[in-house]
């Protein structure tokens, strides 16, 4: 696989799957306002996934069924952070997930601003412009959820649950060395992870939320990036491809004749 192609799959799959999970809140978010705000963010993420998947189509000859509807779920390379099922009604989970992801996303996009693969560099400013609202949204919620002891406990529980999975944001794919050598991304995953820790650990700390020591974290076995995933992902994949399968493209409906 070409290095830029590999980086595009990381980008696209992360955004697409995160948006799928955000969308599950539709009509269930705590208030109509928070519902709309999250729907707006989900729509942005779908839009960004579209930008990256479109590039895979234009530059590498894929079509939409190859990329989404007919791709083996074990070929998706998103981080396990974005695929986990949202515990029912757990708004803190979504807020924490969004925060951990958006902080990493900013750093990754910065490292793509001068990508040697121009079509990626060209699209970065548009995406960054929208990501700013996402970070503001996540942090505004975190600031408020940690205001009282009860809800701070729920934030803490979400951080404990999600942090190990967030580490997989920085797990390499087999193409990592080529991605760096070719200058597709200017910074290594290890560097990005370092910057990310420097940002999220002190911030969560300042809110009275303890972050597990990254070295002591028991890593979840699936890494996402290598195609291994939690069961949650396979269920989600089944759900979002259900309509496509039900349409039965391999057996087109006939208007006339014996199969009509």
């Amino acid at each position: 696989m070409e290095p830029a192609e590999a980086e595009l799959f990381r980008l696209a799959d992360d955004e697409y799957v995160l948006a799928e999970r955000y969308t599950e809140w539709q009509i269930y978010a705590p208030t109509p306002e928070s519902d709309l705000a999250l729907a707006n963010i989900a729509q942005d993420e779908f839009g960004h996934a579209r930008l990256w998947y479109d590039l895979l189509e234009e530059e590498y000859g894929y079509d939409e069924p190859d990329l989404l509807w007919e791709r083996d779920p074990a070929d998706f390379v998103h981080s396990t952070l974005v695929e986990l099922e949202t515990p029912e009604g757990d708004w803190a989970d979504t807020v924490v997930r969004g925060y951990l992801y958006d902080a990493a996303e900013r750093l990754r996009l910065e490292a793509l601003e001068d990508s040697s693969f121009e079509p990626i560099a060209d699209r970065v400013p548009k995406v960054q412009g929208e990501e700013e609202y996402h970070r503001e949204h996540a942090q505004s919620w975190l600031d408020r959820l940690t205001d009282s002891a009860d809800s701070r406990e729920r934030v803490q529980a979400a951080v404990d649950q999600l942090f190990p999975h967030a580490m997989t944001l920085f797990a390499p794919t087999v193409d990592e060395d080529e991605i760096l050598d070719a200058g597709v991304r200017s910074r290594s995953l290890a560097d990005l992870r370092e910057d990310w820790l420097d940002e999220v650990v002190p911030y969560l700390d300042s809110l009275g939320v303890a972050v597990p020591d990254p070295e002591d974290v028991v890593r979840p076995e699936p890494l996402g990036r290598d195609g291994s995933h939690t069961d949650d992902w396979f269920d989600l994949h089944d759900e979002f491809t259900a309509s496509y399968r039900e349409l039965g493209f391999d057996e087109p409906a006939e208007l006339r004749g014996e199969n009509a």
Partner: protein
Amino acid sequence: MIWEVFRQEEPGDRHTHCGNVHAPDEEMATLFAQVQHGRRMQTNSLWVAPKEEIGEVDADDTEFGGTTDKSYRWAITYNNIDASFAEEVAESEADQEEHAEKRGGT
């Protein structure tokens, strides 16, 4: 808590009331208002103001402009002429009639 939202389309325009949002504080109100009132329409700026801080006086509380019949201010008594020769006169008359109707007619 309800925040009234005012939207300005272009720099220099007035901020006009466009709806409200529920939010616990000013920062969340601006965050929600962006999506709810600034996403679809062209927007240069939004104001949010706590509903309870907005003062109101309405027609039940007062007689706006006093109780004297001021219909004489609207010169529609003299409109039995064809004013089509002067566009601005026609516009002005239409304007005056419209206001008179809103006031309950004279």
